[in-house]
């Protein structure tokens, strides 16, 4: 029986390897390795509207 378990585990490992490989191929194809510096900088650009609404100071109020 342990040989069956081992067989399943090896199959699973193979599946994971194939999945990782495909994922990596996709990443290369979509150009994620073209620019290794930009995304790190881009992440810091806080360009979308703030998620937490800021309290607005209305005129006339203190």
């Amino acid at each position, binding site marked *: 029986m*342990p*040989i069956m378990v*081992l*067989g399943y585990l*090896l199959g699973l*490992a*193979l599946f994971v*390897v194939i999945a*990782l*490989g495909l994922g*990596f*191929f996709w990443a*290369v*194809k979509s150009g994620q*390795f*073209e*620019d*290794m*510096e*930009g995304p790190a*900088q*881009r992440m*810091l*650009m*806080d*360009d979308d509207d703030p998620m937490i609404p800021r309290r607005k100071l209305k005129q006339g109020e203190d």
Partner: protein
Amino acid sequence: MRVVDADCFHCGLPVPPDSDFLVAIEGVAQPMCCRGCQAVAQAIIDNGLQAYYQYRTEMPESGRERAPQALQKLALYDRPEIQKSFVITPAEHLREATLILEGITCAACIWLNERHLQQLPGVKDAHVNYSTRRARVSWDERELSLSRILQEIQLLGYTAHPYSAQRQQAVRKRERQQDLRHLAVAALCTAQVMMLAVALYAGAGSGIEPQIVKLLRYASLLLTLPVIGYAAVPFYKSAFRAILSRRMNMDVPVTLAIGSAFIGSTWSTLGGRGEVYFDAVTMFCLFLLATRYLERNAREKSTEAVENLLKLAPAMAVRIKDDVQEIVPVVELENGDMFLVKPGESVAADGAVIEGESTADESLLTGESRAIAKGLGDTVIAGSINLEGPLRVRVTGAGENTVLAGIVRMLDRAQSEKPKIAQMADRLAGYFTYGLLVLTALTALAWWWVDPQRIFEASLAVLVATCPCALSLAAPAAFAAASSRLLRRGVLLTRGHALETSSHVNRVVFDKTGTLTYGKPCLQKTEPLAEVDADRCLAIAASLEQASEHPLAASFLAMVDQDRLLTVEQPQNTPGKGVNGVIGGIRYALGNRAHSPLICGNGNGNGAAADDDGVTDVWLCDERRVLAKFSLSDALRPEAVAAVRALRAHGLMVTILSGDSKGAVSHIAHRLGVEDYYWGMRPEDKLAALKKMQCQGEVAAMVGDGVNDAPVLAGSQLSIAMGGGAEVARASSDIVLLTQRLGEVWQALETGRASIRIMHQNFMWAVAYNMIVVPFAALGMVPPWLAALGMSVSSLVVVTNALRLREGKLDDD
């Protein structure tokens, strides 16, 4: 009158007095220096991109020079015959182009460009690459034209050029992606195979069921298949090419080792007997692919510089035919044509000035830092920049006949010649392989007499144990470790032979302008000649220079705080001579000797100093007398003295070859303590001097920066270029100092020496290991698993030894 107290909010230049360019940014009216900046800032705000101002870390280029006429030129890029060279059509109506963006100074610029382009109707995708500063834009040609896109980029204050070497780039990109995929497959499979190998080795030690061994071996075989069938393909191809051309290279033994070990292992797996070497096969591939990938990456950084060189020459020119101005592509210019070069533009073709007076910045082409006066009959070079007044030029050389094109051709030739020393390792490995093959055959033959049962086991043991794994890793591992060490210090190796050559260098030759010095004039001395004090004189001079675009003007402005600048009325700029203007009711003049007597009356004896010692004298006069003399010269880099001292301390000879005047060169040489210096040398003279040194058996490293140094750099055994210098110089060099710190010259040479020492150690180890293991393997005393282990350990020793180069101190001498 408004007091000058502000810098332009957009570009950071001082706001001229009496100007009133304001833009409301987040509710505050911000001052701008000119209409150009105002337009750019307004465009940014109108598009809701004010976050740019919040996140930028560098000031952009000024919008000052962008005339509306520049926009007119862009319309030419919509012509299909021009688009043909750089626009591709991925689908009907969809167009895609790669643009080189000029003026990118920080990440905020990229964000701004991407955001702005993506907002345009019709733009499908816009992506700017941070490291290459190139933008890839795709758009629907029914909805907008390319010129509109270029125009939008210009409105933001950047300049976009079409990037035409697109096909070449696509090829390189595909290769790089392929390398990455090979590497990934090898890494994933190696990890799995190694894991199974651990189980097998542990099982061999403590007992394991034969069924499980069989399962694990089959799994290993399955996982090795992608490596053999995909990742290792480049080795087969290279080996095949080598054999076809009747040569031997590293990849022949590599292919043999991979192939035989794999076939042997598969044989064992299928037959259920003998050893398997799947772990060794995959690991071997992974090591080699990784080192090759690193090597390739380092090299590619430098080739990008060559491509961007195309930027030096403009794509469009204003041709004058029968007094009609017409914008035409530069390729249409022919000998004898007349064209107009406006101030601030680069010259489209080589030619002679037929009308106008100006100065030209030829520093990119000649390394000469001072602007060169251009008048009637003077020659101008394509790629140089016209600084002051408009020039009419008659073409004497266009396209392939320009000086610039000639330099590029020279570089191509120099680069196509492969250094002999780089091929030696391959040749040695070739001989080694022949020996290895003969030895394996002899072993098989011997065992055929003694015990035919053990032929395969023994000959495989010989082949595996003596596999040139360690031998072939010895050089690349040390190379990769050394280049990564240097890269972290800002030193880029662009050629494989650089490290080897640098270990033999015994003379370092420096260019002066731009290498030992900054290549830009700096104010050295202010000499007041009347009762007005030096500070006041300087403030007057700087204020007058605000209106000038002369390179000297920048050095004056750099010396004076913005808030001390005075208001100048009626500023006048006389190209080639100087500037004058009225400050507080008095007319002041600033300029060279030819300019000053205009207002000072005839010379008062002070104008006799010669420009011979590399110092440019500038005189300030009011209506009656000479107020001050300013001496400007090209300043020595502060670290130059220490750098030269370090080189001499390690027994290297130092020489200076310069195109500059005797006084300027000897001044610098004395300060550096260099006795061996030459002045007034043209590029040919420098090359001749270098050849003479080489004939005397010296190995010279040339350190330079300008395009005029490019032939010399290409002709020297080891060429080191300054990162800030001309791109051609960088392209033809073996080593680039990205940080421009001269101290790194010794670092590079030291690392070169250390890496050669380590390569030698590695070779010694690999050879010694083989000498010891071969007799035992041939005698059948080494089981193949031990041979494989020996091979792996021997490679590991080599790699670990090489990694010592990456960190810490180098134990030199």
